[in-house]
């Protein structure tokens, strides 16, 4: 009997190695890192990403996975934003804001055409923006609420008049709301596109890869590579393996714990990019016992933020609602320190010894953060139960129904301080002074003065301990030395590929 099993094992071993050998014969081993040559205009850039979009309809569907690849590459707006979140002109060659902050006048670049071949005129801009303004199912509808009129005085000019000054308006045009679509186009945007960008969509193999080709008829500087293939690899380890096998030249969102493997291979250079990701520990401000500011402060004092950042592996501490890349940022580390003793005192003062709280967290965030919080809170006598749920459940229970004590979500949107000035947002934070300061900041025409008002409001929010900002996320990207010009910052919300080149290995 034993002998037979062994023979079986031997046969299967031979069979398996035969299969492996035939499979290997076709694929050449990746070249060892060679000196970098001239950019190859016919090159294909392969980028590994984690989160695949569910469909390509950026007009109706929210989500960073869509904006990340589509904005600037396929679709363009009048303005866009740089890696530092600065606003830059895009389809518009220039724009002017009137001194009262109400009238925005954009002049279009020459020779812009949609991928269908049709020329883009100011009428397309008016129709696109008019749709966002009037159709509540389109992304950014709320951001366009302050628009009084959108007109096209001539084919290259667009004029937008607001009913009240809005410091955020121009920035909202850098998002999905500001993209320009062909008037009367019947393309099914869920699976196809008709943009104006430097790339066109060639193929989407759902669950696997999306491929772009260079738009040879692009109105601006043509892209540096002939083709881009986004490979979606949801598993972090599999992503690193693919990169090490030579399957991608760029791997985004590298798990900090796996980063050394890529660096040690010598085939990749790692960059750490800044983001506006705010890892937010939300407190249900509207519900006891978290409606007591002493309890909220105690929880913040109990968290060892430096240790937490170390455990997460990338990012930096953040003690207020506004990250470094957004206007109004200020270092608020003086507001809260790591002080478990003081935390215990505050809890005792609030009559909340032996406090038991539940943390509701979408399951894809993993267990690192909850583990640190459980142990930190344990030290001050707070028991933390972790309720790991699917994202739609989180949306229903926490976001819509406000049925939670504590919640953890990475809030990735830039310039979203307004959530703390909105008493109806799920934080349940209601402070009239913050709301008034935020309204003033929006209405303020001078950007610097507006930022000062935001900073003032952000300090109040942090001093009220409306939430805890566990860390400001950073994103690690592994880039092959053959690749030049790949963006570093904010790439989890925007990967502008027009300036990227790939050199032929020598």
């Amino acid at each position, binding site marked *: 009997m034993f002998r037979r099993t062994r023979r079986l094992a031997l046969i299967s071993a031979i069979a*398996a190695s035969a*299969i492996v050998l035939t499979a290997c014969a076709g694929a050449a081993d990746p070249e060892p890192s060679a000196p970098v040559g001239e950019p190859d205009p016919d090159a294909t850039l392969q980028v590994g990403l984690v989160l695949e979009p569910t469909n390509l309809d950026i007009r109706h569907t929210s989500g960073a996975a869509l904006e990340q690849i589509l904005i600037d590459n396929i679709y363009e707006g009048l303005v866009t934003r740089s890696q530092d979140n600065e606003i830059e002109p895009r389809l518009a060659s220039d724009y002017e804001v009137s001194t009262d902050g109400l009238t925005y006048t954009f002049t279009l670049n020459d020779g812009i055409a949609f991928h269908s071949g049709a020329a883009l005129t100011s009428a397309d801009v008016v129709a696109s923006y008019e749709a966002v303004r009037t159709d509540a199912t389109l992304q950014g509808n*709320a951001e366009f609420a302050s628009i009084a009129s959108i007109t096209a005085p001539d084919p290259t000019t667009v004029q937008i008049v607001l009913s009240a000054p809005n410091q955020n308006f121009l920035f909202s045009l850098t998002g999905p709301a500001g993209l320009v679509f062909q008037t009367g186009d019947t393309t099914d945007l869920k699976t196809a596109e008709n943009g104006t960008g430097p790339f066109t969509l060639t193929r989407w193999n759902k669950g696997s890869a999306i491929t772009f080709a260079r738009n040879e008829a692009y109105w601006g500087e043509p892209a540096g590579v002939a083709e881009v293939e986004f490979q979606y690899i949801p598993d972090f380890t599999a992503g690193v393996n693919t990169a090490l096998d030579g399957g991608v030249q760029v791997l985004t969102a590298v798990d900090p714990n796996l980063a050394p493997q890529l660096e040690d291979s010598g085939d990749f250079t790692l960059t750490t990019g800044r983001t506006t990701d705010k890892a937010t520990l939300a407190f249900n401000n509207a519900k006891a016992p978290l409606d007591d500011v002493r309890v909220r402060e105690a929880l913040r004092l109990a968290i060892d933020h430096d240790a937490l950042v170390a455990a997460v592996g990338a990012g930096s501490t953040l003690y207020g609602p506004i990250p470094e890349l957004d206007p109004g940022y200020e270092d608020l580390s003086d507001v809260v320190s790591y002080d478990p003793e003081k935390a215990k005192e505050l809890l005792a003062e609030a009559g909340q010894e032996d406090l038991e709280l539940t943390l509701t967290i979408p399951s894809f965030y993993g267990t690192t953060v909850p583990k640190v919080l459980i142990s930190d809170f344990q030290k001050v006598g707070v028991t933390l139960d972790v309720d790991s749920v699917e994202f739609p459940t989180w949306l*229903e229970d926490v976001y819509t129904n406000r049925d939670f004590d504590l919640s953890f979500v990475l809030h990735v949107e830039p310039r979203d301080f307004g959530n703390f000035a909105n008493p109806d947002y799920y934080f349940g934070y209601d402070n009239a002074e913050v709301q008034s300061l935020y309204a003033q900041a929006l209405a303020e025409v001078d950007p610097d003065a507006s930022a000062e008002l935001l900073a003032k409001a952000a300090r109040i929010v942090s001093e009220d301990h409306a939430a805890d900002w566990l860390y400001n996320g950073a994103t690690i990207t592994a880039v092959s030395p053959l690749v030049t010009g790949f963006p570093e910052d904010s790439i989890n919300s925007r990967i502008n590929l027009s300036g990227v080149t790939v050199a032929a290995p020598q």
Partner: protein
Amino acid sequence: MIRYALVRGALLVAGLLVSSAVIFLTLRVLPGDVAQLIAGTQASPAEVQALRESLGLDRPLPVQYAEWIGGLFRGDLGTSLLSGASVGEELLLKSQVTVPLGIMALLIAVLIAVPFGILAALRRNARGGTALSVGAQALAAVPVVWAGMMLIVVFSVWLGWLPPQGFPRTGWSTPGKAIESLLLPALTIGIVEGAMLMRFVRSATLQAAGQDFVRTAAAKGLTRTRALISHGIPAVGLSIITVLGLQIAGIIVGSVVIEQLFTLPGIGRMLVADVGTRDLVKVQSELLVLTGFVLVVGFVVDLVHRAIDPRQREA
């Protein structure tokens, strides 16, 4: 026979209808909806409501159910709320992974179960037979996930023979690679299901050994083993077919877990992803197709059984 087939067929249709209602209603218990997911956390409640209306999610449940069933009768499995893709087309695409995986797993299971099951029965009183039975008992109790992880550790991590996960992007246009990536997952399901089947083959063989006709054959001069193999096992084969039918259902259920573990782009993984995004129109059609498949297998097994086994023919 015809009357039996008609009654059995009516039962099949009734089963499908009941399942469709159960699937439809149980999915509606899930918290969260696709409209909220599409709109995101920056959307106002009014925007979400408008989206919900445009997707038809605000209509009464009976209307939604009737529309779904009506589409099914016209052969339309519906379209995904999220991706706009046809559910039927995507099922067909994903079945290119799941169906070969199931067939490979079934083959492996049968290849393990039949020879070893008969051997275990023949050597019932020897040490080897007992070891086989105990081994099968233990293997059948192994969770599929654990078995899969062990196989990954041995064949991918230690030996480096087979890929630990994924399916080639090129699909079946590179058959070698496709088979290679399905081998470990098929082995995982095949071993566990095979161990379960083996215990059945063993007890069925033993039962056959006790039958009068086997004893008669032995009395006519055949050895016990020969008598069992030439007379007993063909009689047992029939009940093995029934169990095999049940086994197919087990393999489908197993594929949901195994495709997740090996990140295979098959029906199981699609189902999990769609539940995760609350694409309920898609999930309910997918579930009904799977349920229908299991029910049809049962139906066919019953008919075959009836046709072959003389004892079951109606008087």
